């Protein structure tokens, strides 16, 4: 089964002389349980691609299917609801909510959806990510690596169809970065979790099942 399918994605910014073709006709798909890395030079359109896949912004052209849902068919609020059920985000700057503790940050998407929290599963995630003793800590009291692990836990919590991660290790030192990546890879295998991850680092990309290369908004290679 395909977790994600992108068809002829185009995203243009500006107009006339200032026209920027951030994405210029990109098509690809990701299988369920696959761990895909997206690489490319700065400004090649990686973040834009990820935002489009996650429905954070509207496309100029093209279609994105997550599982069987064509997300361009959804209204803004439907999309938000879809996002909290089916998509997990991990950002470079961890983007945790400062007033919520670790546990609250993690279960927030589930609670926003009005669902009952699967405590056992959350506990399992916390333990897997080595956060069990930080459960009630406030984000500001955590190190960068710990914060990013909380962000990953939050992305996993709703058992989404896909996790989209934009340079999750960009703010971390190389050792911590490897730890976090290892965990990502581990969770991908353990829970058969589909992951699309952007990275600058080719070594990190090698950990993925597949690498997608972007250049000037176009797909350069898919191997």
């Amino acid at each position, binding site marked *: 089964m395909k977790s994600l399918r992108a068809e002829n994605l185009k995203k243009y910014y500006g107009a006339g002389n200032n026209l920027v073709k951030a994405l210029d006709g990109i098509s690809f798909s990701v299988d369920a349980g696959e761990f895909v890395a997206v690489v490319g030079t700065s400004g090649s359109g990686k973040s834009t691609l990820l935002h489009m896949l996650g429905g*954070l912004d509207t496309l100029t052209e093209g279609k994105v299917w997550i599982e069987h849902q064509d997300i361009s068919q959804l209204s803004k609020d439907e999309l938000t609801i879809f996002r909290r059920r089916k998509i997990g985000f991990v950002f470079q700057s961890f983007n945790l909510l400062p007033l919520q503790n670790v546990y609250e940050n993690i279960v927030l*998407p589930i609670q926003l959806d009005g669902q009952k929290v699967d405590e056992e599963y959350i506990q399992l995630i916390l333990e897997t990510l080595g956060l069990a003793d930080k459960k009630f800590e406030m984000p500001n009291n955590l190190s960068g690596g710990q914060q990013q692990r909380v962000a990953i836990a939050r992305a996993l919590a709703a058992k989404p169809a896909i996790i989209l991660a934009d340079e999750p290790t960009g703010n971390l030192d190389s050792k911590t970065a490897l730890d976090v990546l290892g965990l990502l890879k581990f969770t991908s295998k353990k829970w058969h979790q589909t992951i699309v991850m952007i990275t600058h680092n080719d070594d990190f990309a090698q950990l993925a099942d597949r690498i997608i290369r972007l250049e000037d908004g176009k797909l350069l290679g898919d191997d």
Partner: protein
Amino acid sequence: MLKVNNRKVIKRLARTQMKQQPLKNRLLVLAVALATMMLVAVFSIGINYYTVLNQRNLSMYGSDYNGMLTGPTEEQINVVKEMKKVKTVGMAVGSVTVAEYEGIAVGTSLVWADENHWQEQLQPVFIHLVGSYPQKKEEVMLSEKALKKMGVTQPEVGMVLPMSLAYYDGLRDEEMILSGYFNDYSGKNRGFISKTFYQQSGIKSDDLDRSRLYINFSTPFISEQEEAEMEESLKLNKYQHFFADTEMGDMLFKVAVSVIAIAGVIMISGYLLIYNIVYISLRKEVLYFGLLKTIGTTSRQIREIVFRQIILLSMIGIPAGLILGAGISNYLIPKLVVTMIPGVVSFRGEFQPVIYVLAGFFSLLTIFISVAKPAKSIAQMSPVEAVKQEDMGVKQSNKSKTGSSIRGMAWRNVFRNKKQAILVFLSLFIGMTSFTVVSSIIKNNNAKKILEALEVSDMELLNRSSGDDNQVQVFSKDFISQIESIKGVKAVHPVSALNIDITKPHEQFSAYLKPEFEMAYGVDYEKEGRQMMIDRPENFFGTLVGLDSQQFQQMKKKFQLTISEKEFHEGRVGVIARTLEHNYQGLKALENQRIDYRFENRLLEINIDYVTKPFELFDSIQYNGFFPEIYVSNQYLDRLTGSETFVDHLVIDYQQAYDQETDLEILSMIKENKHIDHESKIERYENMKESENQLLIMGTVIAFVLALLGLLNYINVLSTSIFSRSKDLAVLSSIGMTTQQIKKMLLHEGMIYAGISLLFSVIVGNSLSYLIFSLTNVYEITYEAPLTMLLLLYFFAAWICLFLPNLVYRFIHRDSVVDQLRNN
């Protein structure tokens, strides 16, 4: 270390940085100007109020003193001079009276004033003075009023005035020379003579009736205790009278406390707003300051940058506030002060620089206090801290356990920065509470309400000749029926009056006489009063006041009388009215007692059924004898006199209260008649209305500005907080919080702000209003909350609290989530 001249850099840094936040600057100028304006208004009310009170006292007493001793002995004068709180003492002795001038009866008393009395106590009262104090025996100085009474309209210094002078031992004709004349605040008919004259007049300086020692204390604060002690130390003889003004200090104290309290509220409101604006703007600039520090700007310099900015802004805000305040003070306050002090008819606000100095000083003080703390904390922050910490002053609570329900999140957002939240609550609370108090004061000072409480009738026509020897019966039966025939008139009640002699005053009024003599004549009843009554019986008469049936019925209902109308009409029973605090107890004893009186050689008697309590009955009866009026019926009086009894005044009821047409018709009817005076409820209402409007405008300005300061503070804090949270909101959106859920959360935040501050304002504001009302309720009005105003305020405040968060959110929400995530 080398002293580097870096003023210029600091100046430039301050200026460039200021340009970054135009909105903040405007808000600050507005806050400073509003606070300054209100301080000017409040100080000016206070100071003018005090000045007017003083002026009123001057015009009442005719000289500037706050203590007095009658018939002082040498020893007593020395004791007074030695007293701790005494500043000056002055002597005045009434030596002689001008009885006649060219055949005109005058009755001007001529007084010798010593140097102190003349210089210190009389000068402040004079409006203008020509000539000089009499030096030679034949010289005299007179007030313009006295000269006018003598028929001298164009006085000249040096003119010869032949007059008949009444010495204590008889009349003598003398030629006096006018050494000067004056006009003073008291407008009294009086004059002065030289020391030589006084010495030769034979009046002693301790003459009880004519000699007075006037005292000025060094402080207005004299307690009744101190007054008693002074009196004690003077060892007065039985006829001497000592008085010290203990009320002025009280009054001054009350005025000062009110002014300080209101100024305090204004300063706190101003402080809260300015503090928050500065605090928030510095928080936004924390990174910038951190950078400045890393490149070597010292804490002191940073503080200087902050203060320089605020001083620049104050230089616009304070003068603007002073000018606005001056506008309010000069147009509104003089009129306002006149309405607050009974007995003062006009008052011209003087330019009092001290008001502006005070207001400027206090608003500057407020500004410095407001800025000091944020400036200090930003200056002392280490560069690392500054660069790292973006949310200055936010204390993270560790290990929270509240769930992350939307309500819980809203609650936490509100109290994210506890101190700031409390400041916002406080300023909203103060604003709304002041508004509540002021509008309730205005509401309950409503002219119509007061007039209803006083039971003022629609129109009263008064006979001007009532007090004269030759009374003119202007309200004849014809006249009355003419008035009755006017369309809007419901009823006309003639009130007649008749002088009678009380035949057994010493037996029947014994309890009344003692306090009455003390108050009215300042003498002891046993020692002098009794003799006075025997010597001049014509001064000690009583009055029967006649009412018609309807008025009797009203009175019967109001006082729950048990007497029948028949008894009343037959003149068997009456009601004693117009009692005062000091004589009420004495008169109360007369209830169910018989009183003997005489009218034209007929000996009569009447039973007293009821004695009204002080101020229970307001009436316009114009000639009051020494004894209180006894209310009987018109029919009875007519029978007694055998004709139409003299009608003192008419009480007229309208079909419809405040009926302008009927009022005008009656007024045009009496226009030509010089014997008739009138008191129209509409005119009184309009007079009161005018002052009420001024109170309304003034109060509304103060209340509105205080409420505005609170709301501005809220708007400022909340919008900044939402702007600074825009990234959090984007994160929430990225992890699946719908717009609706976000709006709901923000609405909850608004509800928390509105709920808490409204709750406290409603409770405290209304209780405080009621308290103030009960403490100042002289007219026995029933309390009414200003419902419309309050509901408007509460709705408006709630509306702002509830919808502002979403309004701001809608504004930032125009950016896409991606942009919001990126913008940080």
